[in-house]
């Protein structure tokens, strides 16, 4: 029944359509709980459901696809939302730039996955008012959900266990209302070689998980309010080799009382380019942020290594608190920080001071006494107090653009043709993480070929 209600919510089915959904939905509901990776792999050998050759709409394709199956979407503009509630399904566009799911500035979602093991590949999603691509373990009869800046109904993670196994590969999400690509209450996933621009909240978002086992790599975020945002996603989140350049804010690691699993902690942010985050061709950041490379708000014990953090007009890194949650024990090592208004600033509230944050290779700080405090923390296992604070002054934030009016991106590279044998395998239960020790500080032109506007 849940499946049926979700489909009704997201697709706005006609009565005839609903009949089909009820028939299919009831059957697959029971199957989902019992379907393991092996069963899915067997089903995945079936021929793909082709749009528009086999069915004319994405909704019909979602109804028809079996566990482990593939929906192959031809070139065209699809004024639909695609909800995947069948496990181990692959959604793939025939041409990344010409297969476009368009929210039309009215539909909240482009592609939503609420089942385990879903891949979304080689497709463009634009014009959604909320999420371009959403993976979420939170959903009920009202549809999929995730918190938003303007309100949040608390969800019980016990009642809604995290979605398992997901992959976003070669997806373009541009000019979506709040978020481009968003994984919430989800574990064991990869977001790779994708692109997000024109988001009024963030281009990429990973939120609310512990032992997340999520890899974010090889992506480009530009002309967003925030390039990459993490709220309460902790432990094994690896953000490596991405280009977060030309947003209002490059990357944030946040503790948020709007989500479960406080505080945010223990991400690895390695080998990224985080530069020039003072782009006016972007929607406003909700708090007026502009010119910041990395913002840590109540984030703790994160490792930030071998990134190039440069040309940020307010600050390379800003440490601050989230209400009563301090920024503590974050470690910044071997980054290249240059041409920032100031490399690091501590803006924590007096009642919630930062402690134990270590940084090497930092040339300028606000206040200047922070420099010695950051260095001292590297030599001590204790939570070295870092009580001195000062506000980083940047340029005035220019007026925010409508997300619909941010300049669209250039065409993006297509995913190589899928190896049928590999594509029919279910996603692994544990993400194969890269060897981070091999990553060096990226060049200033990392992924530049994928950057730019039409």
């Amino acid at each position, binding site marked *: 029944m849940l499946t049926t209600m979700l489909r009704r919510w997201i697709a706005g089915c006609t009565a005839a359509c609903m009949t089909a959904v009820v028939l299919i939905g009831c059957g697959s509901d029971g199957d989902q709980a019992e379907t393991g990776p092996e069963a899915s792999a067997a089903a995945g050998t079936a021929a793909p459901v082709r749009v528009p050759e086999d069915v004319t709409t994405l909704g019909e394709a979602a109804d028809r696809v079996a566990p482990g199956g593939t929906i192959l979407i031809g070139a065209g503009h699809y004024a639909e939302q695609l909800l995947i509630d069948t496990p181990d399904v692959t959604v793939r566009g025939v041409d990344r730039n010409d297969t476009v799911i368009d929210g039309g500035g009215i539909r909240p979602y482009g592609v939503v996955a609420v089942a385990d093991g879903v891949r979304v590949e080689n497709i463009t999603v634009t014009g959604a008012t909320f999420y371009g691509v959403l993976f979420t373990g939170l959903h009920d009869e009202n549809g999929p959900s995730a918190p938003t800046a303007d309100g949040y109904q608390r969800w019980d993670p016990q009642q809604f266990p995290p979605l398992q196994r997901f992959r976003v590969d070669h997806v373009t999400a541009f000019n979506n*209302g709040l978020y481009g690509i968003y994984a919430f209450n989800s574990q064991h996933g990869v977001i790779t070689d994708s692109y997000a621009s024109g988001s009024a909240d963030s281009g990429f978002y990973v939120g609310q998980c512990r032992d997340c086992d999520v890899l974010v790599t090889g992506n480009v975020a530009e002309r967003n309010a925030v390039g990459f945002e993490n709220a309460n996603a902790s432990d094994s989140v690896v953000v490596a080799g991405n280009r977060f350049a030309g947003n209002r804010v490059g990357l944030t690691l946040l503790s948020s009382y709007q989500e479960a699993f406080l505080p945010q902690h223990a991400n690895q942010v390695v080998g990224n380019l985080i530069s020039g985050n003072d782009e006016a061709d972007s929607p406003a950041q909700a708090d*007026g942020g502009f010119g910041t490379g990395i913002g840590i708000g109540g984030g703790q014990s994160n490792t930030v290594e071998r990134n190039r953090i440069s040309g940020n007009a307010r600050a390379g890194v800003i440490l601050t608190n989230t209400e009563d949650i301090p920024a503590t024990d974050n470690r910044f090592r071997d980054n290249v920080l240059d041409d920032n208004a100031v490399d690091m600033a501590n803006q924590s509230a007096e009642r919630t001071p930062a402690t134990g944050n270590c940084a090497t290779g930092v040339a300028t700080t606000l206040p200047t006494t922070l420099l010695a405090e950051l260095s001292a923390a590297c030599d001590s296992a204790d939570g070295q107090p870092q009580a001195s604070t000062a506000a980083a002054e940047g340029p005035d934030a220019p007026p925010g653009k409508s997300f619909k009016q941010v300049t669209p991106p250039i065409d993006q590279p297509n995913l190589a043709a899928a190896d049928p044998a590999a594509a029919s395998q279910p996603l692994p239960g544990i993400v194969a993480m890269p060897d981070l020790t091999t990553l060096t500080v990226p060049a200033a032109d990392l992924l530049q070929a994928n950057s730019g506007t039409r």
Partner: protein
Amino acid sequence: MTRRRRTARFARLLGIVAALVLLLAGCSAGSAAPEPMAPPARPVTTEEAQLLAVVRFNNFDTGTRPFSTSITEKGTELELQGWIDYAGHLGYAEVTGSFTPQALLWNGATVGVHDSAPDAHGNPALPIKDASSTDWVSHPLDGSTSRLDSLLIVLGGLGSDRPENPLLLQQAGALWLRADTVDGVPVTVFASPPSDNPPGAGDPAITADTSPLRLWVDAAGLLRRAEIRLGAQWQTVDFTDTPGPSLSVAGGGG
């Protein structure tokens, strides 16, 4: 947020606006007799909530919306015609009645007027007079003492730089009131949620008359008309879908 920033913006939270108008309404909020055979108000569907969720964003996205209305302020009939620039956070209107015509300019904090004849279309003269001009007579917007100020505050709050959450609109009590037309264009008439938050367990049921704000919305999510309850009276404000000028004021930010 600094005071300077605050004064540069329209009041943006609908809840604040709604509370303000409810305050004015006191206990005398009149409920007009329902039209015979009118279908009853009901909670919005998912699709209707999605439409309502983009109305304020579409005003921002459009930039400037031409509008007209009439209002009685302290016994004087006023006719207003002009524009609201939701991206620029400025409103500018010609005010006419049994007095010398005036140009009226407002933002989220301040309203000012000066004597000025309308242009050939009934709109206020452009460019807007420099803010430093001594011709302006201005005062802080105060919705508790002025019906006109209340109306201007509510109108300014009808823009937002991002879409709203359709689920929250449903939970907070947005209602479908009826189908209608404005200038021949089919529209849906909604009652905006009376507050930003869902009603609590002990709160009275939300009816068609609970909210002080009704919105006439076309199929593209464009606002065509608003009704705003001030005291016991509903004020009608009409919007057209014709382009309007970007508004700016030199010499002090309006």
